[in-house]
């Protein structure tokens, strides 16, 4: 037996003997994997699919959808399609589901909801054709090519509508994609606003958190521990409580205005709440621990002899701090800033309570579309856009800073 062969056998034997241990390790990790799947992968998949799913029209108008599959799309369809529509709507009228499909069509063609409802009522009473003339007599829209192009499009299992809308794009009945008019465009500026607020909060927390972390690092451990506790303390109260506290502080009759008036810094009460200033201030306060902790943990790892070495080599105090200490804190600053930036992108309660209408962020709109408008598709699409932007920013950071320039603790 050659040496090489023996080596290969040996390697295989080693691998085989390691296998039971690997199996045990896998089993131990299984709960975490399952949790990750249930709590992260599955909802993410649901989110992605909800952004493109298109079930309403297919559900309510199954025969029409089937009939339209053979339609050439060049001219208004013929009687069989109308007959299928009549049959579908008759059923929908009984089940009270016409509004469901109407609402979906309405997204892409305003006014379709009421047309569907009245057509459903008509179909409920009609028994024999020809249906084509009957529908067109009820509303000329049923004879328009555009109406049918939109119905055919919404009858497909998947749609780009929500994602396009989330990017301020629209699809004309003929399928061409264009920007929406300026007066209806909100989502791109909303995205820009969300990024801008998150950036301001990040800068604010770094500017305030960096000196704070430094002071905690250089004070005697006993004092430092208390200061660290004070930094962490707010994390033990709920986000809502902290936000409400800011409402009390910032409101026009609130503590901050009282103090400003009393000290004579201002002559009249300032509008602090329901403003961008209030939103950013409250968010900075809430995010501060998330920025401080990684910076602090990196600073604690920097030996005091670093500054001493720099001083002994000729650097004045400030220069030593700036050239030697500060660059070494960068991994913590990048990590803390990134955590805060990404968390800030998803803020919801604070802008809702402390911000004005011009300070609402993407999450506030997602919540509106989920809770009030029941437009889960658009909510998901906005979620997908936010997720994509977040990942892109994270990726850009990794490229610029490199994974080794980031330390979370």
């Amino acid at each position, binding site marked *: 037996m050659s040496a090489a062969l023996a080596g290969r056998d040996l390697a295989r034997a080693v691998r085989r003997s390691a296998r039971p241990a690997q199996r045990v390790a896998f089993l131990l990790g299984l709960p975490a994997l399952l949790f990750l799947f249930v709590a992260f992968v599955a909802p993410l998949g649901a989110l992605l699919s909800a952004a493109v799913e298109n079930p309403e029209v297919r559900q309510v108008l199954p025969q029409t959808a089937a009939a339209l599959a053979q339609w050439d799309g060049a001219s208004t369809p013929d009687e069989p399609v109308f007959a299928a529509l009549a049959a579908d709507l008759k059923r929908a009228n009984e089940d009270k589901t016409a509004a469901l499909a109407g609402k979906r069509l309405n*997204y892409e063609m305003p006014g379709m*909801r009421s047309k569907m409802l009245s057509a459903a009522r008509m179909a409920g009473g009609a028994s024999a054709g020809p249906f084509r003339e009957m529908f067109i007599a009820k509303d000329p829209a049923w004879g328009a090519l555009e109406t049918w192009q939109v119905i055919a499009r919404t009858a497909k299992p998947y749609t780009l509508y929500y994602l396009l809308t989330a990017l301020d794009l629209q699809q004309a009945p003929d399928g061409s994609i264009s920007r929406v008019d300026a007066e209806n465009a909100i989502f791109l500026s909303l995205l820009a606003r969300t990024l801008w607020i998150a950036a301001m909060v990040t800068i604010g927390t770094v500017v305030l958190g960096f000196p704070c972390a430094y002071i905690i690092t250089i004070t005697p451990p006993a004092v430092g521990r208390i200061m660290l506790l004070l930094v962490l303390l707010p994390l033990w109260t709920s986000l809502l409580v902290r936000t409400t506290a800011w409402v009390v502080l910032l409101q026009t009759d609130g503590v901050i205005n009282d103090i400003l008036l009393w000290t004579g810094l201002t002559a009249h009460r300032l509008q602090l709440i329901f403003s961008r200033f209030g939103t950013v201030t409250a968010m900075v306060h809430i995010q501060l621990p998330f920025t401080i902790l990684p910076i602090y943990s990196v600073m604690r790892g920097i030996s005091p002899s670093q500054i001493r070495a720099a001083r002994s080599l000729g650097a004045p105090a400030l220069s030593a701090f700036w050239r030697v200490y500060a660059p070494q804190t960068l991994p913590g600053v990048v990590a803390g800033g990134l955590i805060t930036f990404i968390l800030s992108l998803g803020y919801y309660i604070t802008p809702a309570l402390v911000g004005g209408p011009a300070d*609402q962020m993407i999450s506030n709109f997602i919540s509106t579309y989920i809770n009030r408008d029941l437009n889960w598709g658009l909510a998901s699409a906005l979620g997908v856009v936010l997720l994509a932007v977040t990942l892109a920013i994270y990726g850009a950071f990794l490229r610029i800073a490199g994974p080794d320039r980031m330390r979370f603790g």
Partner: protein
Amino acid sequence: MMTGRTTLLGLTAAACLTALPAFAQGQLSVMSFGGAYQAAQRSSFFEPYTAKTGIKFVEQEYGGEIAKIKAMEQAGGVTLDVIDVDGPGAQQGCDEGLYEKLDWPKVGDRKDWQPGTENDCAVGTIVYATVLAYDGDKLKDGPKTMADLFDTKKFPGKRGLWKNPVSNLEFALIADGVSNKDVYKMLATKAGQDRAFKKLDSIKKDVVWWEAGAQAPSLLASGEVVMTTAWNGRIFNANKEGKHFKIVWDNELLDADYWVIPKGAKNLDASYAFIKFSTSPDVLSNFPKYIPYGPVTGAAAKAVAAEYAVNLPTSPANVATAFATDYGFWGDQGEELRKRFTTWLAQ
């Protein structure tokens, strides 16, 4: 007190006669809006019903997000038997098939309900109003009409509005001189919508928007606004806690709350029995004792004790210039108007 007990006794007797059959679990799950409102429901509906039938209530609270109902039904585990929904919730949920289609004879005579407070899947219970309110302690000579809400010369300062197109577009047109009878006709046209938004534009920078009902009185209390639109019960309750808020009943906008049965509810008969009980005149007329929301059935409205009737949106003194939210209109046009409102807000 005496009458209350006799009523209860009478009801118990009636219940024994009607011999209630299959309440298998002996409990009923209800979901409502929480707070003082649900407390009032507890005192006037749930507790008497438990006393009468032995059926216990499992209560949940929500903020009117019918998304929760939709999610529950999509997940397939409908655990609720009866849900309290607001007007838009009743309309939208009905349109989208979230509720059981009602077998009205099991509830009562549909004709007893005031028009618009019943539909195929929702049973109206009480009427509340969106009104204009201000702090009597801070403003001696307060606003008198809906037009004053938009008059920043006469009443400078911020005003609170509900962050929702519903009520604001109506009030804007009324303040602009449209009669409340023509409001929805006007709003159905592009010109009318433009007119309403233009009127809102005139105070846009002076508006503080509220979302939860409790925010309106707290905005008034903190002095954040000089006046606000609000739900009348919230103002009444704030006054119970020592405030001196005043309600301007001019052009009050009426809305109803409804019972619905979520589609797929397990215990339909029990749900029906409870809805029938709570909307019976004797029971429903007791409700304003706890919160000033008026019964929607004619018989119950008549039976409300005089001392509570005066605070109701439906009392003769208050109702003169009232008008009701047109859910049909909002069902048809809501989508576009909501979108336009959201865009307008964000710009």
